[in-house]
């Protein structure tokens, strides 16, 4: 695929932006619109953009780990989030308040759960896109070989 300097430069910034916004959505999700699911979708769209622009290898490189690892790690994190208060019930949340002097930060197991959802959704959507894209490449190679 032809590389275009405009595309290259734009994507470099766009991907950073997408990553930041998706983190932002993840963190604010508990109090404002957002949350793990939509944040994960947004993060995955970065992979999609790379895949469409530069084929599956670029998307894989950006993702770094295999999409299945994201899926399994996401599930594991989500399950771990459920076991903090196991003597009461599975998935019963706990919350701790961390004083920062000027303000306080509340952190609870549901946030960890949301993080798991985020990672999993990122993995699932990336897997879809990467697999479909690379299957398409093979069929194109196929056609090329037939042409030769």
């Amino acid at each position, binding site marked *: 695929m032809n590389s275009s300097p405009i595309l290259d430069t734009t994507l470099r910034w766009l991907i950073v932006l997408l990553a930041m916004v998706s983190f932002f959505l993840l963190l604010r999700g508990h109090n404002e619109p957002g949350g793990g699911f939509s944040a994960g*979708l947004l993060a995955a769209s970065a992979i999609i953009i790379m895949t469409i622009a530069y084929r599956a290898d670029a998307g894989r490189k950006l993702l770094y780990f295999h*999409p299945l690892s994201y899926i399994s790690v996401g599930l594991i994190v989500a399950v771990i989030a459920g076991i903090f208060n196991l003597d009461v019930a599975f998935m019963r*949340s706990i919350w701790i308040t961390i004083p920062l002097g000027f303000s306080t930060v509340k952190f609870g197991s549901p946030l960890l*759960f949301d993080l798991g959802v985020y990672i999993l959704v990122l993995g699932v959507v990336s*897997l*879809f896109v990467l697999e479909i894209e690379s299957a*398409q490449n093979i069929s194109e190679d196929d056609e090329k070989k037939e042409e030769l």
Partner: protein
Amino acid sequence: MSLAFLFIIPLILALISPFAFRQLGADWSKWVSAFVLVLVGIIISLLEQASTGYPQVLHFEWIPQLGLNVTLRADSFGLYMALIITTIGAGIFSYSSGYLGNDPRTGSITGWLLLFMLSMLGIVLADNIVLLFVSWELTSISSYILIGSNHQDPAARAGAKTALLVTAIGGLALLGAVVLLGLATGNWNLSELPPLHDHPWATAIFILICLAAFTKSAQWPFCFWLPGAMAAPTPISAYLHSATMVKAGVFLLARMHPVLSEHAAWTPTLVAISSATMLVVILAVPKMTDLKALLAYSTLGALAILVCMIGIGTPYALNAMVVFLLAHACYKAALFLVAGSIDHAVNNRDINVLGGLAQKMPFTMVTAGIAGFSMIGLPPALGFVAKEMLLETGLSYAPWLAGLIIVLIMAFVLVACCVVLIPFFGKNKQLAVKAHESPWAMLIPMLLISSFGIILALGLTPLEQYLIAPAVASLGVDSIDIGLWHGFTAYLALSTVAVLAGFLAYYQRHIVRKWTPGLPNGNHIHDLIWTVLIGFARALTRIIQNGSLTSYLGTIIVVSCVLILHSWIYVDAPMIPSIVQKVSLAELSAGILIMVSSLATAFARKRLPAIAGLGSMGMGMTLFFIVSQAPDLALTQFLVEILSIVLLVVTFRHLPDFSAQPIKIQTGRLIIAMLTGVTMTVLTLVALSTDYAERVSHWYGLNALKQGHGYNVVNVILVDFRALDTLGEITVLGIAALGVGVLIGSLKQIKTKKVRL
């Protein structure tokens, strides 16, 4: 506490077996044998307490909610069986160290044999019936692996599969019986089950128990699996298929005797089925030429007699059953081991070929002689005592049964002579040249096991006092004085006639063979059933799993619509609630957008416009969410819509172009679409007309901050209040992704293969 060691020791040994075998080689089996002798000691030490009627009980809770506790109860009958299992087991382990030698599979075979022994001990000592079922299934599984341990042999694989299928049917029946027993009595302990013959479920329980016992103990019509299982290495045949596992069915019936024996069908069913099995054995034995097949069929006969005795169920019959169980275990295991030694020495088991081994294998011959003595039932062997009791019981039940038993004893005599005489004194001596005596590790257990049949009969009084009488007593009937010599009675005359006729049949065996009507081969029947079953399964799969996504989706949608509409019409009042609500301009325009774009999607001539139509439909939904002040849903819907459009665009180049085809209305799909539309409309209206939803959302609104520590109620519901649902959903998502990966991966494989071609 010593009861626990009976299970812990074999388990540990089984787990370390493959590694230990690598270190110690063939000696490992001898070590195992020594450890199993320790188990024998433990069992003997438990006997005295059991005979008092207050046996040692081991109890700890496993899943108490399901009534599943590990409750072991070392009562006398259980210990009696356990003693047979471990004593013969110790012999088998020592024997297999010589038989299998340094064969690389020995480590795992020894491990599986230990696990098998463990599960057998579980069956005979379990008090909890669910634990009994679990152990029962474990014996089926370990027996499957042991029969198939020679897995490169197709016959071994086929035999293993048949055995597994038949015993698995029985296992399912036992599960049903156990559940019904537990529910009917509210009691999950064998020792506390009351007599059940009056209960409305008694017949069902009885049928299930019979199915389980008959499959495990290879009674007619399930008898064909046992000869097929003879493809296993001989020590395994000797252990599983003569001495222990096949007795599990008999054991189960004996345990159920106090519970079900008053049922009207108990005696007729058991006697009829076991008689049918005896008939099969009588007809099959003269045709057999393989040593192991001969022994296998005579084992079927012995099992049939045991079942028959339990069926008759008088105290005398049960006494006979207990004595014959022990006698048979001793002589049959020993004879199997003899057959294995001959096979090991000359690599042949055919009685038409064997002969002249007397000089080469003197100790094996002595073993065979002692065991054959007991099998024929000559005094002073234990087999003699048992045979007299069997005949007496048979005669007291019905003369025809006594006749059948006499003919069966003839068949036993024939088998015993064929196995004991032909290989050692037969005229054919070609094979004997290369023969060699088995090593001591094989000979000692053989000699010991076979001579138990004589030693125990000579020490009949202590045997009766310490073993048989308590065992019979724990079955709930009175024990009876058994003696080696009852004087010259009618039974003695009958049994003498039977034995002499048996000898005659042996000497004229060629004539007998010629005049015995053949049996239909059980394997053919089994194969036929198997083919029909598999064919049916294939046809059904072709209908249900036809591979067309369209038909799957159609089925799912239609079924759910019909279910929803059905519950609306028959459960709720079939009226559409009237909801008067003001429709705002924004809502109206969103609705029009959705309708227009869905029509555009349906009538699009190319894929890209169709996808665009689908997308704008989704945007209309997003608009609805925004108007209804649900920013969270709107955000997610928006992202999902964009992503699905992107995915569709990425995919659509794969799909065939359809712009050339004329637009035609497909009636079936139109009906499905309209059905879906109507159903969803109804569902929405009904959902809106209840105030239930209102109360729920009110509760969440109140508690999101207080309990969930978050202002975003939707998110708090997702990650806290209903987190378990979310966990389920993301698991499904992950599995769906795996499915996509596998599907496309296989597509890639097909394509790359095509390239290579």
